């Protein structure tokens, strides 16, 4: 019998055992299922946060308790800018919070209330949940829950764990790092700072602020993963600091002049090749369209300028250009800009 066969026998055996043990509890009515339990166990760890509003920006958010002595994680936002920030616990008790930390880049804030909070979320340093796993999002979106009312729960799956570093442009969000995209719709006012948990109650991350992806021009539904939260709470500065390039940046060029008439959003068409330049040696031609450099897509002039910043003189890279209907690959090393 192969391994799979054994596994089936094992599963059947387990099933018999479970059915046996199940008889004992079958009498109990309203036995909570695990999703109920994940939600009911999480509710005491959820808080509602109220602060200042500014114009159309709402002055409320959600938060999660992360220590037994009243540490609360929430998102960064204008609601923190008022004279006081009010935190409402799941039993309806109101506390004035002090702001310990806030970070522009991770879009997180750490609050503290003077209360003991015996039930709190553990922040895992490892990734919790993978693509396709069920998750429950808990948040006070639209301020639906008042006082001691429990916050709203939604079911979805993890859509993708991805690094947003290269994906989102600056105007999307300052956040750089791993995002957990989910398919429950959490991109609503007041939801940020909510919890995303697995059906067995482990914290995947907290609901991120509303951001619009320039990739799709749609709102993203996502969680900031627990490992990032852990680093933020622990005070290790690595999440807040941009990693510095090891070497000093060089001003390099290939020796091409691009068509600039259409603005920076235009594709990178070569207008003219400078004689004697690396581009000339690589036999690039006028009207070639630069498609990629060193494996990175060059969608427009902006991408081209960004790409040059990461290159070093005399280091050969692969460039792909479109010439007529042909795709042409050349190896080319930029030179120091004169």
């Amino acid at each position: 019998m192969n391994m799979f066969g054994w596994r089936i026998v094992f599963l059947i055996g387990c099933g018999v055992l479970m059915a046996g043990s199940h008889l004992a509890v079958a009498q109990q009515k309203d036995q909570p299922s695990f999703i109920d339990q994940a939600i009911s166990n999480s509710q005491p760890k959820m808080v509602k946060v109220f602060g200042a509003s500014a114009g159309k920006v709402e002055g409320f958010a959600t938060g999660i308790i992360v220590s037994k002595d009243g540490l609360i994680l929430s998102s960064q936002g204008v609601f923190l800018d008022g004279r006081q920030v009010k935190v409402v616990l799941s039993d309806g008790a109101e506390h004035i919070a002090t702001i310990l930390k806030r970070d522009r880049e991770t879009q997180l804030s750490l609050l503290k209330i003077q209360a003991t909070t015996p039930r709190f979320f553990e922040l895992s340093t490892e990734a919790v949940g993978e693509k396709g796993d069920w998750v429950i999002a808990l948040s006070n979106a639209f301020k639906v829950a008042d006082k001691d009312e429990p916050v709203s729960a939604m079911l979805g799956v993890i859509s993708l764990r991805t690094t947003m570093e290269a994906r989102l442009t600056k105007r999307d969000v300052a956040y750089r790092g791993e995002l957990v995209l989910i398919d429950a719709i959490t991109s609503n006012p007041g939801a940020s700072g909510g919890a995303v948990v697995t059906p067995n109650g482990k914290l995947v991350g907290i609901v991120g602020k509303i951001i619009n992806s320039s990739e799709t021009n749609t709102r993203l539904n996502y969680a900031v993963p627990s490992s990032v939260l852990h680093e933020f709470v622990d005070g290790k500065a690595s999440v807040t600091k941009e990693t510095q390039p090891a070497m000093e940046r060089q001003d390099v060029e290939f020796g091409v002049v691009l068509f600039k008439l259409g603005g920076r959003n235009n594709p990178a068409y070569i207008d003219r090749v400078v004689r004697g330049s690396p581009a000339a040696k690589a036999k690039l031609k006028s009207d070639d369209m630069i498609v990629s450099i060193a494996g990175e897509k060059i969608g427009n002039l902006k991408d081209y300028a960004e790409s040059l910043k990461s290159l070093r003189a005399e280091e050969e890279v692969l460039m792909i250009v479109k010439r007529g209907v042909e795709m042409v690959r050349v190896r080319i090393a930029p030179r120091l800009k004169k």
Partner: protein
Amino acid sequence: MPVEILRLVVGCLFGLLVNPFALTVAQTDNDQGKVDAVDAAVSELSEAELMEAMVLTSKAFRNAARRVTPSLVTIESYGGVSAVQGRIGGIRKQGEGNTTGIVISSDGYILTSTFNFIQRPPVISVILGSGERHFAKLVGRDDTRKICLLKIDGLTDLPTPEMVDESKIKVGQWAISLGVGYGDTSPAMSTGIISAKNRIGGRAIQTDANISPANYGGPLVDIEGRVLGICVPMNPQSQAVGAGVEWYDSGIGFAIPLANAKKLLDRLKAGEYIRPAFIGIQSGPNPLGDGILINKVNPKSPASRLELAEGDILLNINDNPVNDMLRLKQLINRFEAGETIRITVKRKSTGSEEQLEMPLDPPPTNAKEPLALPKIR
């Protein structure tokens, strides 16, 4: 491998058990015996078993995605967003990112959504599942289904997905949407069920899995990774290329089933451009009874060729009564330019009812900018 299939079946079964939507649907199917059986099964499951079931559905989702992913392609966009001004179907502008397509034949035919070509890119480059980048040409398009066919030349052994015949698709079954629009090489997934069939003039199926620019052109697959349809933006009230985007990630999403569409694919392969039907009348409700009142007839339109005139009343199309404008749009949407419909009109001049054959035109090119904002009711 039978064990693999067994595991999937177990996954599906448990999936049905833990999926509340599936239960609701079963109830509406008048299949009371089945519902009772399912309910009983739920009440006898232990927590550990339920947890195991949940874990199994997630494994089945991943398995489904893994099966179809080799056939997914990333369509790269070039030239940014400057080519499009103004709003497209409720979205201020289109995203700048890559979009999704799916290989349908080993010799390089790729299906995607017309939404991904609103910007009319100078070059269409696609990255195959293998990571290779190729240029593709646009071969044919169908504006009534918002799909288009691309072709990469010189290839012979591309992996193709299995497709599910539309007649085998059941309302309430699992549906998983996949797309690479968020920029990762691994597709993002959203799960849900088939909400309805026979939508948008019978062309589309409906799902509550998230459908958005992140997966337009990508596949909607079943729990075994077989393709149910191609995700597209759709709105029954408008055929503008961006219409339906306003419903992204809303629980109302559409996909075009294609397992049975050999005829359609042959037309697209032959370079055909299939366009919506246009009859050329402006009309309003008939205050005096049945039908709709024609207020204006566009010159050089199907209506003007039949000498329809202001004051005539359109009573029915192919024996379907037309009593309001929405119904008219729905009926016309079932057809495409080039087809012929049979209409019944009551002439104002003679007062008599006439049955007429009306060959349909495509919309005049200057009548409506294809990017125009659809009317949101």
